[in-house]
């Protein structure tokens, strides 16, 4: 296959192709698709068991519980992001491609969020109901998760990219990534708690949006640099 016969692919084309491929691979492996969601449900279940089944107590911590569980579920699913590609060599092909790595990484991150983040967002009202979250706070919870979970995927991607070549990854990934995600957790959970107390939350959303904007523009750059370091 010489360079002359390969049809020109636009950056947008490569972006869409990467996104579609990752989604396709995920849907072929149903278990990988379900595990993060099940993990999310199980972690949330642990809190009433461990803390108290009392509705008042649960209502007070419900926002934090859902947010922390979403964070952990996102962490757990991160390992799938580059590992299989690293092992079968397709990650190297990605790095060799003439397209800017920034957009390919972004496509992979978006695919990861669609697979692991979006289901959590969709399921969150059900869990909020089971944890007695006051009714007025539902929309805030869903919206903060909708803005916040992509940031988790984007930051997490940097950690996975840095550790993809290592033998044992699980714990070091958590040690690297979790401190970076703490601001998102603080603001996201705070917004929901504030709504419960009737406080205004516009500024929380502005901050979350700003974090998403910063993460979208910087994180893929760092992930791309990290991938080039790890794969060499």
């Amino acid at each position, binding site marked *: 296959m010489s360079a002359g016969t390969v049809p020109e692919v636009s950056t947008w084309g490569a972006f869409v192709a990467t996104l579609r491929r990752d989604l396709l691979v995920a849907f072929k492996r149903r278990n990988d698709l379900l595990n993060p969601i099940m993990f999310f449900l199980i972690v949330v279940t642990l809190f009433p068991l461990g803390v108290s089944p009392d509705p008042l107590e649960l209502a007070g911590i419900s926002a934090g519980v859902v947010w922390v569980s979403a964070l952990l579920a996102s962490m757990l699913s991160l390992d799938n992001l580059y590992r299989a590609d690293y092992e079968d060599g397709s990650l190297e092909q990605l790095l060799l491609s003439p397209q800017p790595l920034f957009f390919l990484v972004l496509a992979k991150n978006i695919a990861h969020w669609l697979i692991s983040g979006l289901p959590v967002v969709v399921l969150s009202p059900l869990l909020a109901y089971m944890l007695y979250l006051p009714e007025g706070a539902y929309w805030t919870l869903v919206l903060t998760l909708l803005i916040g979970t992509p940031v988790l995927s984007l930051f997490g991607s*940097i950690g996975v990219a*840095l*550790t993809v*070549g*290592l033998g*044992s990854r699980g714990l*070091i990934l958590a*040690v*690297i990534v*979790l*401190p*970076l995600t*703490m*601001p998102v957790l*603080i*603001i996201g959970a*705070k917004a929901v708690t*504030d709504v419960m107390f009737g406080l205004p939350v516009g500024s929380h959303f502005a*901050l979350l949006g700003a*974090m998403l904007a*910063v993460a979208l523009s*910087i*994180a893929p750059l*760092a992930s791309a*640099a*990290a991938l080039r*370091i*790890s794969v*060499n």
Partner: protein
Amino acid sequence: MWLWFSKLGSPRWFYELSGRWLPWLYGAMALLLLVGLTWALLFVPEDYQQGHTIRIMYIHVPVASISLACFPLMAIAGAITLVWKMKLADMVAKCVAPIGLWFTGLALATGAIWGEPIWGTWWAWDARLTSMLIQFFLFVGVIALRSAIESPDAAARACAVLAIVGAINVPIIKYSVEWWNTLHQPASRISMDAMSPNPPEIWVPLLIMISAVYLLFVISLLLRTRNEILVRERRSQWVTDLIARSQS
């Protein structure tokens, strides 16, 4: 300028230069520590509310202020490593991480010792305490990554990326944490700034102590970096000569 820059990249040049600096730094640190500690521990007047416990400040504040400088320093050294592939910058980045971890831990520990008599608790989820704790975790992450990657070159660049990402995050963490807590307990801020009527007899010894502990930081960073240079350059001629000379 460029000559100086390329010279600075040479570990040998740095080793010899820092060897000439060290005696002066030791002397200055000893002098400042002696003056600062005697003044702070014996002659500073007791605080009208806190009594003798105010003296913990003369350790706590210098240590905390230096721990805040370590992460930016590590990120800058990391950026130099990535851009110019300067070996010395990576050695500094590697050596500053455990020192930063120690100073952050010391700041937390001295803060706890100070907090127990004054606030009545060793720990509070106060904004400053929490952001220091998160900074502690960030250092742990960088050190863990460094030890996990076997190839020194890959470890250098991976840690540089992580340090830069972390340094971008440090102010975000600081502000989000501050803002997270000030909503619920604005009172704790006042207890921290309770000594705002601040006469020179309080802050001059503090300034001396800050300079002394800064020198301690510089010295430990230099010593660590010098060891790192010797380890990494152990196969080069000048290091074997150095060892031969020290053994004869």
